[in-house]
């Protein structure tokens, strides 16, 4: 590779842009330059945590082509496990007493969050993945997410039910309450998010990741090359649950409180929207999408209490005319120039070409055509 192209590769490297975005966000998130108002650190923190959540979801959506409509279950699992570990609990289950005192080690909290989320993901994947794909898969993930939601919602004794849990302490570092400042917490979260995203980037660009792309493009072909497609789909599902769990862990510390909303359909839907908004087939897309989503939410919610309707409108518009999201648009502008890129937005053919999954006939189809000819 020549020096010039190496420099270009560095300049367009998604991780570089991720780092830049994370560095800039606290100064621009929710900012209003006209009123001389700077960024809000707390909005920026929300953005990067959801950026991580959405990126993990997108490992499945953008890279395997499977739409999970229940990824908030892993987010809420990570969040609740952290909250319970931190605050302690004492409950009776079938005559057994389960109890645990308050504790503050954030690494143990993280490990526990991951263990629970991954175990649940693995169990679900074993049930769901070999049995379903396409919209059937979306419906089933959505329904299973409700199991976790209603456990957090109804098990008052353990989770505090509808009100959830409050006053959860942020972790201390060497006994110092460094993280209690919003700005400090942001940089802590930023470091965690960036490192975790590097892991995700490595997964996507490994030979494993390219098999996922192959499965997204053409499951049948992948099978006939000798790939155990379902095994890869199960592994991708479990891996993609890890990132929301880490995000949930951060979320509990950030909010210092947790309630069942974290596992609701709305949260699952919102990360779909973030991926779609930013561009689901790119690495940077979901992170950018999470930032844009919260910027939008912040702006609109100040204007109307029915702001969710406007989120819905953006959803509809993006599905109808721009399923490749902002990053897709940037790509098109680079390839075709502004005028043609805009024209492509309204071209149905271009949209069909860029859809997530190939439209191959189902497995039995070749036979049917043979019969009819």
């Amino acid at each position, binding site marked *: 590779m020549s020096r010039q192209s190496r420099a270009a590769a560095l300049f367009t490297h998604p991780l570089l842009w991720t780092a830049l975005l994370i560095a800039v966000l606290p100064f621009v998130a929710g900012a209003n330059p006209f009123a001389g108002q700077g960024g809000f650190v707390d909005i920026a923190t929300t953005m990067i945590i959801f950026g991580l959540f959405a990126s993990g979801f997108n490992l499945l959506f953008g890279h395997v082509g499977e739409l999970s409509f229940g990824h908030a279950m892993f987010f809420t699992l990570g969040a609740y496990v952290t909250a319970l570990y931190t605050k302690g609990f004492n409950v009776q289950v079938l005559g057994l007493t389960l109890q645990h005192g308050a504790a503050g080690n954030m690494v143990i909290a993280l490990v526990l969050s991951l263990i629970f989320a991954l175990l649940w993901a693995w169990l679900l994947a074993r049930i769901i993945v070999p049995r379903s794909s396409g919209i059937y898969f979306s419906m089933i993930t959505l329904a299973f997410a409700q199991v976790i939601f209603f456990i957090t919602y109804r098990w008052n004794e353990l989770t505090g039910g509808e009100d959830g849990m409050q006053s959860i302490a942020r972790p201390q570092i060497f006994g110092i309450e460094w993280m209690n400042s919003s700005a400090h917490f942001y940089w802590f979260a930023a470091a965690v998010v960036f490192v975790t995203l590097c892991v995700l980037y490595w997964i996507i660009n490994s030979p494993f990741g390219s098999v996922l792309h192959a499965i997204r493009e053409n499951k049948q072909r992948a099978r006939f090359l000798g*790939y155990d497609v379902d095994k890869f789909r199960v592994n991708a599902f479990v891996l993609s649950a890890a990132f929301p769990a880490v995000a949930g862990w951060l979320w509990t510390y950030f909010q210092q409180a947790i309630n069942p909303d974290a596992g609701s359909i709305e949260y699952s839907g919102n990360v779909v929207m973030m991926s779609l908004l930013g561009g689901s087939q790119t690495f940077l897309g979901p992170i950018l999408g999470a930032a844009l989503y919260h910027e939008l939410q912040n702006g609109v919610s100040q204007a109307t209490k029915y702001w969710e309707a406007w989120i819905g409108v953006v959803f509809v518009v993006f599905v109808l005319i721009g399923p490749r999201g902002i990053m897709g648009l940037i790509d098109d502008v680079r390839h075709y120039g502004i005028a043609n890129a805009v024209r492509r937005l309204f071209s149905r053919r271009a949209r069909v070409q860029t859809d997530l999954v190939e439209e191959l006939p189902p497995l039995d189809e070749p036979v049917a055509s043979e019969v009819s000819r």
Partner: protein
Amino acid sequence: MAYIFKTEKLTRRFSGFTAVNAVSLEIPEGGVRTIIGPNGAGKTTFFNLLSGLLPPSEGRIWFREREITALLAYQRARLGIARSFQITNIFGRLTVYENVRLAVQAVHDGRANFFLPERRLGNLADKTDRVLRDVGLYEAREARAENLSHGDQRRLEIGLVIASDPPVLLLDEPLAGMSPAETHETVDLIQRIAPGRTILLVEHDIDVVMAISTTITVFQTGQVLATGTPQEIRANEAVQRAYLGELA
């Protein structure tokens, strides 16, 4: 003689229609073994049964002394049964290079650690480039597969099939829709890769079939009508009545 495939009363029915009807066949190892027959004779269904795309309704299949009736498609692919499809079947939105690399890399599935950097998985890149040169697509390696011409896409698919160095190739109408020039190149390609392998071919271009086949098996209404060398098939009256007659 050693066989590569053996079937016993292999049958596949579709809601009342029997596409392959109790076919018992031994396909010897090596050479180009072509299956011909009128449309609807069950050739593609037979391929689908051998490669594991469809489970048989009845009957059993052996591959080199090993029964594979219950094996799934990917397991058969790992045994070295590679196939192409009637309708071009490639990874459309990946580059030509990525397409072939995925096929080369498949050999490592289950053995090597898949999270290692590519260079640790043997010399993937070298092997990929070699396959690309074999099928004459080295120059087009950076192009997206969906943007290739039809003929190049068909050749890419053959590239995917040979990338893992399989002992058996099942090629389902590899020449369909090709221009004469493309046909010529592809026939050359098939003859070049044939030595040391068994090639099962379903093809309609009768001139090509006669020119390159070691043996020909004729299917009719889901059953084997005849098997023999091209000369024998040409001379077979039943075949002429059923099939060649309508073409000639």
